[in-house]
């Protein structure tokens, strides 16, 4: 199976330590923080789509749900530890229910895409329409299109006065991403992960082997949502406001583009895709000559045409051909071509 688990962990730790040390020298930590958060969001879809074959058009729904859960809980509780935990659990439970409905209903890919898309739309429309004073959860007004500002941001657990912000907040987010990355690595090396990949490849065969495909897909879907929820909560802390735009279709579509560009079926690809494209968007946002959605669309088209497997697999095979046999052969993955992409 290629590298051993401990080698994998070591490489991850060394590479991420270097990145955490070097990147702040080039890009401000405020920007980097959001890139890290998007990386985590990309990883959440990369996990369920790239390794579980579940194309979810509504990953933004779990992201937004995590952010809103955090904001609402933080206003009511006033200390950030429990709201962070809730922000992971609520999207996970929501996804488990939604996933069970879809997978036990044996919906095919297309309907799965449509349902996740519609759920995102419903959440978007609903949260947008909650401007009135009657929409209150505890002490928190949902605020409709204005969103929820002014909630307690991340603090040192147990000490609501000790806020974590600025540079330290970047390190918290970066370390959170490394931990999530390692957990995903562990998951994919476990039997559960290998079975999930088997299901991606052939659901019928896995069913005939005796695996309960629907249950396993539901669990994987919920894990993906939990990661997206954590990213959402971190995003809420970064922006210090949550708005319905978190649920927008544009956001959902962007996550899918990150995965395609970065490389589906790799752990690192969606993170690179997310951070890279988000940074590009940030740069493009500083000028007004070209519309950045146009550039995004162009990048997607170019990748689908010329690098259909994405950036990371392409770079890996390039390095492999340069260094020849001395390097480990990257497991060549023949992905199903991305549909609708």
């Amino acid at each position, binding site marked *: 199976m290629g590298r051993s688990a401990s080698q994998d962990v070591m490489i991850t730790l060394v590479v991420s330590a270097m990145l955490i040390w070097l990147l702040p020298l080039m890009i401000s930590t405020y920007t980097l923080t959001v890139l890290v958060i998007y990386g985590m969001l990309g990883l959440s879809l990369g996990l369920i789509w790239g390794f579980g074959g579940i194309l979810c058009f509504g990953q933004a729904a779990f992201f937004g749900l995590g952010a809103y859960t955090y904001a609402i809980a933080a206003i009511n509780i006033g200390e950030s530890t429990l709201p962070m935990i809730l922000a992971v659990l609520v999207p996970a439970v929501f996804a488990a229910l939604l996933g069970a409905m879809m997978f036990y209903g044996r919906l095919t890919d297309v309907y799965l895409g449509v349902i996740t898309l519609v759920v995102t739309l419903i959440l978007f429309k609903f949260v947008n329409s909650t401007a009135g004073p009657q929409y209150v959860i505890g002490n928190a007004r949902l605020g409709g299109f204005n969103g929820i500002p002014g909630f307690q941001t991340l603090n040192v657990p147990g000490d609501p006065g000790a806020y974590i912000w600025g540079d330290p907040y970047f390190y918290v987010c970066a370390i959170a991403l490394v931990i999530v990355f390692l957990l995903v690595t562990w998951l994919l090396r476990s*039997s559960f992960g*290998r*079975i999930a*990949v*088997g299901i991606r*490849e*052939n659901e*019928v*065969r*896995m*069913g*005939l*082997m*005796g*695996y*309960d*495909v629907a249950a396993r897909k539901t669990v994987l879907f919920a894990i993906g949502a939990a990661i997206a929820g954590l990213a959402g909560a971190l995003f809420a802390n970064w922006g210090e406001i949550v708005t319905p735009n978190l649920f927008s279709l544009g956001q959902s579509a962007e996550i899918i583009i990150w995965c395609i560009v970065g490389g589906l079926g790799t752990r690192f690809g969606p993170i690179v895709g997310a951070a890279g494209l988000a940074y590009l968007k940030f740069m493009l946002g500083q000028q007004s000559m070209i519309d950045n959605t146009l550039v995004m669309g162009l990048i997607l088209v170019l990748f689908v045409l010329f690098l259909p497997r994405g950036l990371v697999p392409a770079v890996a095979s390039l390095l492999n051909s340069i260094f020849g046999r001395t390097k480990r052969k990257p497991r*060549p*993955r*023949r*992905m199903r071509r991305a549909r609708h992409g």
Partner: protein
Amino acid sequence: MVETVLETSGLTMRFGGVTASDNVNFKLKARELRCLIGPNGAGKSTFFKCVTGLLTPTEGHVYMRGQEVTGWQPHQIASLGVGIKTQTPNVMDALSVHENIWLAARRFYNVVEARERADSIIDRLALGAIARTQLGQLAHGERQRVELGIVAVADPWLVLLDEPAAGMSAQDVDRMTEIIHELTRFAAVVIVEHDMQFIRSIAQTVTVFHQGAVLMEDHVERVMSDPQVRAVYLGKKA
């Protein structure tokens, strides 16, 4: 008395106005090898799908080792220890031969044991040279053999094979025959098949399907020489 491992009573499957399986009563004893034959559209595959849970029969019952399994999902039936191979090769193309077989073993054994069993079945099927190759790159006969490995690795007591010899070379068929004979030492085997050559080489008892119902059930030689069977199966002029 030998245990009955598979039994259907009054199994009927209708698709709209078409009765694809008509009141099939079928019994299979432990370690028996049985071939299901019949012309196209005779209802063999429908019967196969009803038994494996891929279809839920309109009427009738399916029992495995005395337990009613009518309407169960394929994964529940497979969990009983039933190995199933469908008509079209159903394998994981992007995964290696070893990973494919390991996944099948992992369902019933822990990680270490699953690896040992996968290794030993790969040896037995002479797949060692291609164990790390992706299935998508293999020839049809090899893929069929890997799928047999997937079925055999979990030590099933009942094996259901839908056209295992389809599209294989003579040499591959010989090897397949050998593997199936080995399977019957521990398991009852049901084979749905078209290839008469293959059936002659492997079968003892044959069940003939015609228009959804069982036409006759007897020793292979008697079935082959039966004028009625020749009429429906080989065409009127035979």
